[in-house]
């Protein structure tokens, strides 16, 4: 099955290298918004690339779609929801904060807090013991 994937990827990559796709942006701000948005989206065909850089034909079309939606006044959130409704949360590189991702977004913070508690404990114990000031020479 891996050969299948590689084959499909190669077909898309070899026949259409369309990642460089000049679009008629209104102004620089819109172009930057487009770049930031497509960088946050994942390509489904070349799954290791974001939508901005992927050369797959589907990526070209989805970029057009994003562009058209931006032009018709949709917000970033709405555009993302449009894609998620069709392609699943998978398409977002910025995982949404929901029940399934609570662990992802909050565990690091929890770890820091627990660690801070441990550190504080160690400091308390250590600072109670008598301290010998170091000779500046010995500092290294």
């Amino acid at each position: 099955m891996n050969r299948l994937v590689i084959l499909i990827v190669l077909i898309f990559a070899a026949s259409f290298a369309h990642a460089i796709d000049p679009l008629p942006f209104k102004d620089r701000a819109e172009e930057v918004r487009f770049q930031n948005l497509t960088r946050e989206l994942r390509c489904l065909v070349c799954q290791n690339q974001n939508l901005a850089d992927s050369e797959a034909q589907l990526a070209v079309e989805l970029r057009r779609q994003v562009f058209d939606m931006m032009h018709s006044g949709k917000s970033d959130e709405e555009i993302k929801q449009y894609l998620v409704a069709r392609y699943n949360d998978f398409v977002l590189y910025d995982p949404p904060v929901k029940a399934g991702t609570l662990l992802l977004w909050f565990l690091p913070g929890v770890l820091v807090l627990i660690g801070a508690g441990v550190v504080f404990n160690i400091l308390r114990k250590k600072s109670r013991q008598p301290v010998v000031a170091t000779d500046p020479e010995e500092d290294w």
Partner: protein
Amino acid sequence: MSPELGQFSLILALLLAFVQFTLPIYGAWRGNATLIGLARPVVAGQAVFVVLAFALLTYAFVTQDFSVVYVAQNSNLSLPWYYRFPAVWGAHEGSLLLWILILNVWTVAVATFSRRLPDALMARVLGVLGFISFGFLLFTIATSNPFLRHLPALADGNDLNPILQDPGLIMHPPMLYTGYVGFSVAFAFAIAALLGGELDIAWERWARPWTNEAWAFLTLGISLGSWWAYYVLGWGGWWFWDPVENASFMPWLVGTALIHSQAVTEKRGSFRAWTLLLSIFAFSLSLLGTFLVRSGVLTSVHAFASDPKRGTFILMFLGVVVGGSLIIYALRAPKVAGGKAFKFISRETLLLINNLLFACAAAMVLLGTLYPLIGDALGVGRISVGPPYFGFMFVLLMLPAICLIPLGPFFRWAMADWRATFRALRPALIVAIVAAIAAKLMTHDLPLRGVAGVAASLWVGLGIILYALNRWRTAPRGRRFTPEMLGMILAHFGVSIFLAGVLITEATSIERDLRAAPNEVVEIGGLGFRFQGVQRTQGPNYIADEGTIDVLEGDTVLTTMHPQKRAYSSGSAPQTISAIRPGLFSDLYVALGEPLDNGAWSVRIYVKPFVRWIWLGGLCMMFGGFIAASDRRFRVLPARADERAVVPATSVPQAAT
């Protein structure tokens, strides 16, 4: 004939590795000097056969022996001769052999440069290294044999993946592996210390230069990888938080915590448990990285061909090595928190916070990298975790560290004078804030990242310069700067350069996709880009469309750039070869797209200010690591009571500390 010799060499190496990890450790346990004495010769023997096997594989590539399956899969007749050498490590089997080779190089170095260590400790260190080598050799022979034959020999091979046909391939994997694998020395030392007893921790000084060197190599390897991705992949990015990149970054983060923690353990006797655990974790993350890349468990652009059988083997090996070491830790870790006391405000506190932040950062990267898998396990659907998550969380975690870095060198051990430190650092703080405000006012539309970049890099950079000046003024002549201190200064300075590079480039880079018509000039970032058309050219094994673009400043031509699109004769996917004009303060980057109408082409143009500073910062950190490792003080070890271990290692030696 010679591929069979290669296979035979590997088997001999395997047997010697087995001897290396069983007999000396047993000998150290029982106080048997003969068995202990076996360690060094066996190390030498294993190394000889591993080098032989690697040389034979290289020979097969150089002579283009397509009867060897691995050679046929990764090279062909039109591959230029200079790529036949790095092609050896272009795929899974060969890169494993490179891993083993580098492990043996480190082991031989350790065996050679450790005469001052007690023999029993030495035997255990070499024994642990032998166990690791044994595992990898077994894995290679059992599941990933590079010497498998295809008879009759194929007429021609596939090709080396065109992305890899680049000087970057020559340097990036070897340097990266040297770093990864180098952490095995600190790991082996930690296990040996745990097996031997508490007093072995006194020898921590011996382990420091090895760890600093491994860290420096890893810093180099990661920087090379980032630079290589930047110029080869064509999309101007330098870090993607791809699972395999993360696999190399996690050991680096833990390694950074480790080198600092080792300093405290060595000088003050504190943080022994931290140092032991970090030593175990750094190498464990290296092994985990090896697993992630080769097991197919995660989607990654870097991943080698996946195979559940290989994945299972590495996972079991990982389980034994890491699980075993954590069991040894649980049983033998120091029971009493040792070391000299220190107050709340002290250098120890700062380094403890440092340990915490870097360890949490590594945990965060691990969590994010594995989360798609966790999502599948929990049944919440296929989740993607990418740069928006990692970038955000990493900055959050590193923010306190960046604020505290300049305080580190100024704070004394045990009891620091924070008022004096703030007085000394006040100029840095003022300059950082003023410059940030100035940058915001002078630059049109500078995002917060850019302001933060200016402030952070000046705070860290000036902070370390102020320390260096302070030291110059206050320390007696002839003892102002030890290599260890110089290394620290350079590495911390490297951090400030790196910060400037990352934040300013992220804040001010310009990227435009354009329709470029011949002789039209487009203005980007204050420069004019004039497209001159596209021509056909030929390379050794490819045909290319080459574009010509003049870069104008006003009316003068600064430079001409030639981006290419190559089609390789082997039929692999076409490659975009971007044209880059490097600059200390700004890179120009042009990639060729598709032909449009009327001789026009689509092109992508980037202007990336300060992007080189990212890798310059990395290089500074690397040099800092090497310089620190060179300090002769690390070779002044506690006197040994006896030349040979004639008593069991568990009794107290008479050595003075």
